[in-house]
């Protein structure tokens, strides 16, 4: 057994012999200080970037194919190229509103290595000619806020941020902003609305994406914390070394957060596109198998919004494109594992309830549909289900996300996978996300639903007797 294990001061982080592109400093107790950061090659990437032309730095990022780590997995270098030329000012917004169920990797990056994120922001600003960056951090992460604020103060004091950075003509201001705890603000256009001081509700994207019309109507790049945290290492080591990690299509490493019925849940940095789900869940370096040697029933491969996977999908690599083709998404890299003791309907309800509560209330199908789904599931669990409920659930799902919903293959029933992404009648994917647990479980475990509805395998709630006589209890 390797000696590596949890790092006490980086809660949940498991130190192993995997790649160390973004988590290299987590083993140090003072990893969040400028002193430690400078002692471990800190701000070297920025220094090297400043010696090159901005276009050159942009080219480096494009060549490295740094895929977005927030959910959609779009290459950062390409996204940066979408900004219309000459429409100054441009803004960089860092999405630190990590709130996808099961995800807790960005929090660690912000708490344990804030300077790495700041340096990543500076490199981005330099590459794109930006002078203003907004760090939007989720309100429920006070430690991340405190460490980032302290790091920013240190960086300003040392001349890494502010006017004439490192004695050059390059100047950037970074503004730290607290969120107020809405899940939807993790969606980039809702985040922009919130940053502008409005209620966090998504904007319709086509025809205008934030890169064209974003914060205050200006071209805006919204990047995830982990994405930007890759850049310092990339600038120091170059894109060739970066691409030596991971797979051809998905280079580099990736942070994943595993939770649920495994022996060692935690955050791991893995080889992107190489490590498989089986490695991750059963490997000694990683989660060390299912608890009590139980059977794996199902797992969510990429955050609460992802359609579910089953044991048949265990040998897929953790790679966005592959997972998408197989009917789900890698999303935010959160894997939630459920063993054979899990009640599929209850599990579905738990996630659907999250989406119902977190719907921003803008689009009718999401606002009304998610709550309706939640109430039907609750009713089924309460023993008040009706035979028509299963088809009704699927039809409500179809009204939120029309057409075949992405789902994994089921060889036992001879069913093929429906590839990601789903269609939607809503502006953002929150509503369609609530559909994932329903379609995934009904397709695979319809019998569990039917058992609850027809066989009444839980005690039905009885109506009070019509008689006015008091009922003897006990």
């Amino acid at each position, binding site marked *: 057994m390797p000696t590596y294990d949890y790092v006490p001061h980086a809660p949940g982080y498991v130190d192993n012999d995997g790649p160390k592109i973004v988590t290299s400093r987590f083993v140090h107790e003072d990893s969040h200080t400028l002193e430690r950061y400078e002692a471990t090659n800190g701000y070297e990437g920025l220094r090297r970037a400043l010696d090159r032309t901005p276009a050159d730095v942009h080219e480096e990022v494009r060549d490295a194919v740094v895929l977005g780590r927030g959910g959609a997995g779009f290459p950062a270098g390409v996204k940066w190229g979408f900004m219309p030329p000459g429409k100054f000012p441009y803004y960089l917004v860092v999405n630190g509103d990590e709130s996808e169920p099961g995800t807790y990797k960005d929090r660690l990056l912000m708490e344990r290595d804030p300077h790495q994120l700041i340096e990543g922001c500076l490199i981005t600003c330099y590459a794109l000619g930006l002078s203003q960056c907004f760090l939007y951090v989720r309100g429920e992460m006070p430690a991340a806020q405190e460490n980032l604020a302290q790091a920013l103060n240190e960086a300003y004091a040392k001349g890494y941020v502010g006017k004439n950075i490192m004695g050059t003509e390059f100047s950037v201001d970074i503004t730290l902003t607290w969120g107020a705890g*809405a899940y*939807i603000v993790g969606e980039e256009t809702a985040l922009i609305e919130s940053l502008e001081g409005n*209620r966090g509700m998504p904007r*319709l994207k*086509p*025809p205008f994406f934030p890169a064209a019309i974003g914060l205050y109507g200006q071209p805006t790049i919204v990047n995830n914390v982990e994405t930007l945290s890759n850049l310092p290492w990339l600038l120091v080591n170059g894109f060739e070394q970066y691409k030596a990690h991971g797979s051809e299509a998905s280079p580099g490493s990736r942070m994943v957060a595993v939770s649920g019925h495994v022996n060692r849940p935690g955050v791991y940095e893995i080889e992107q596109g190489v490590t498989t789900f089986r490695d991750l869940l059963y490997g000694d370096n990683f989660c060390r198998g299912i608890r009590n040697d139980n059977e794996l029933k199902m797992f969510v491969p990429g955050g609460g919004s992802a359609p579910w996977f089953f044991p048949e999908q265990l040998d897929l690599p953790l790679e966005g494109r592959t997972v998408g083709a197989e009917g789900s998404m890698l999303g935010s890299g959160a894997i939630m594992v459920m063993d054979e003791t899990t009640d599929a309907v209850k599990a579905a309800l738990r996630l659907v309830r999250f989406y*119902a*509560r*977190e*719907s*921003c*209330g*803008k*689009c*009718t*199908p999401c*606002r*009304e*549909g*998610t*709550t*309706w789904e939640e*109430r*039907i599931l609750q*009713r089924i669990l309460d023993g008040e289900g*009706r035979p*028509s409920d299963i088809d*009704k659930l699927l039809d*409500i799902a*179809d*009204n*939120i996300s*029309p*057409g075949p919903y992405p789902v994994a293959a089921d060889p036992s029933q001879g069913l093929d996978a429906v590839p990601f992404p789903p*269609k*939607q*009648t*809503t*502006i953002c994917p929150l509503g369609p996300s609530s559909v994932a647990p329903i379609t995934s479980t009904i397709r695979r475990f319809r019998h569990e639903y039917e058992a609850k509805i027809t066989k009444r395998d839980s005690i039905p709630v009885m109506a009070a007797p019509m008689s006015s006589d008091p009922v003897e209890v006990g």
Partner: protein
Amino acid sequence: MTAVENEKSTVTVTLNGVEIEANPGELLIDAAERHGTYIPRFCYHSRMKSVGMCRMCLVEVDSGRGPALQPSCMIPVGEGMTVDTESEATKKAQDGVLEFLLINHPLDCPVCDKGGECPLQDQTVAFGPGESRFVEEKRHYEKPIPISDTVYLDRERCILCDRCTRFADDVAGDTLIHFMDRGNSTQVNTFPDEPFASYFSGNTVQICPVGALTAKPYRFKARPWDLEETISTAWIDSVGSRVTIQSSRNQVLRLLGVDADSVNWGWLSDKERFGFEALNSEDRLTAPMVRVDGRLEATGWAPALAAATDALRDVDPARIGVIGGARLTNESQYAWTKLAKGVLGTDNVDAQLGDGLPVEAVLGLPRATINQACTPGRTVILVGPDPKEDLGALFLRLRHAVVNDGTTLIELTPTRTGLSTIAAHSLHPKPGEVDLLAAALVDAVSGDAHDAAGVPANAIAAAAASISGPVTVVLGRASVAESAAVTVDAAIALSQLEGVGFLSALRRGNVHGALDMGMAPGLLPGRVPLRAGCDAFDQVPTEVGMDTIAMLEAAASGDLDVLVLLGSDPLSDVPDADLAERGLAGAGTVIAVEMLPNASTLTHADLVLPAAAPTEVDGTFTNLEGRVSVAEQKVTPPGTARADWMIAAELALRLGADLGVESPESIRAEIAVVSPVHAKLTETALADGRVEGVLISGSSIEAPTASGSTTPANDAYSLRLVAARRMYDNGTMLQASASSAGLAASVKVTLNPTDFEKLGLDAGTVVKVISGRGELMAPLAADFGVPAGSAMIPTNAPGSNVNTLIDASASVTDVRVERA
């Protein structure tokens, strides 16, 4: 080939298999509707920004990447776009949205005011499923909660379309209602302890697509299918907003805004919308009254008219006066002018009450329309009252132009206004010195910036530099405590700007019609001076007569035998209460032609003739642009009240003259012949302009000449008075409107807080305000929007009338403020 020709002026879209031509940038939902395909919608409103919230207008759109469901209210048409509004996918999505909207919507249609005219009900009847699949308990909220004094909100019925909240935020700028909570608990509400006290709250009721918002005056009054309606014109102010008057059983029950592109875009101020309540008031005059032993007693028309004729017969025309007439239709105004000037031979006729502007300033300067003022890229200079308080619908148009279309707004006003927050420059001259500031602004445009009226040179230079495109001056009396001459001089100065146009901000309903119909001294119908003569009149006065102030002065000294109050209340409105009282007391016979008794009628009229209201007569109104639009009779007058033109005709007959008027149409025909500017106002033109009206232009009135008056400096102990109107005041019509009467705030004296220390006073203190003319008591209020050295008191506010402080003959009024 020019660049313009190179650009294709239309976009071709395939709509349900048929190619249609759409305008570039047009939204799909609008393009489809123009071509006969109505896409269902709840949140979309053509006068507000799209939000794509309700998702009802989802249609299948293929822009080259395969068909996808898109909200047609947010997608601009694109060349080669293929749209299917009838596909299976479209129908399924729309049915799904409809079901989602209905699951929590209460089934209280039978008791809902919207039932029968409800888009949600209509859509459901047309396309919805017959049965509900929703077996759960519906969402519950407390049934209607009052969110303001007039508007109730039923959150159970609300479908969260964002229309009311968008209106409050984007259109009115009163961000007082908003979404709160999230998910299924999302609801519209006010902020705690802050009611939706907006002058425009009634618009949210009109645009609500369900029965969530209801207004007190119409709640449970009628069912939509029992209503009869006609398009007419609002009469409360001079914007001339187009309205639909709806009535049932011969009673007006509701007014709705009509989307006239040149005027009000469908919006109304609450005063316009709910003002009809006064017309249904129990206080309406239903029979003529005559004063017997000091008391008004009801009588018949025959004795009343005989008494009026006796008073008027054989009187020296110079000793007869007519004050008022802005309430009347153009046709009635013409008849009264013909009676006064053509039959009685007096030129002492004035529709304004000393609180307006001289004729030359309104008719003698180049005029602009609302649309010209609001054209993108132009500049508006406000020299006049706060449009938000005086001319609600104009305020909404100007606000839209400044916020959305890049119109530059420069204010030259004595205090902050409802537009100040969005104005490019708010310059506040000392009261009585706006003429100096206007001249300085013109100087600054030509490069010579200097201090003026207490405003520093750099501020004036910055304002001058911001002027772009042609200028529209919104011109009116910002304060009745300073003389009209100051405003006229400011207008003369600004008229030197290149391409300038003037938009009158005189407030009273049909005051512009009154001027066009000759209801001012020295004027005849058709914007012509007396010397131009009038063929249709038996005689025309040769001497220019007296205006209201002069008439009251003459009456006070016993030189007026008959004074006709034509829908006017000098005691409340003439900015010199003392003069008004002396004038009314000193006049011989006072004859009032009125809908509702007012202070002047009750105390001084010897004879009262009941007049019909605007909803009870046919005719036309003229708005502040000179736009003539139809006012149509919807109900019959109460009791024996008559149209004003009939009263004029009856009086003329009894005086032995025939006005030759038989109906509003016959009067209009005569106006079109008599007035050179109304020649094109044919019945056909009016019918064609049923919504937009007919714009009357041209004038034979000469431009005003500078008064040469100067404003004296005030001493260190006094403050200079600003007397400005508020939307809700003690006016007769407003106080007779049940749901609006309580909205008038009681009188306050507002000072800049920096003046408090100097005076040793604080906000809330009750003070005595003393002028050379009189005094009043009122509490103090603080507002940095009032410049230091000025004291703002609203006109005709409940409590005390600021007019008691004002001397009509002085150019400004200085007051001392003391602890009471």
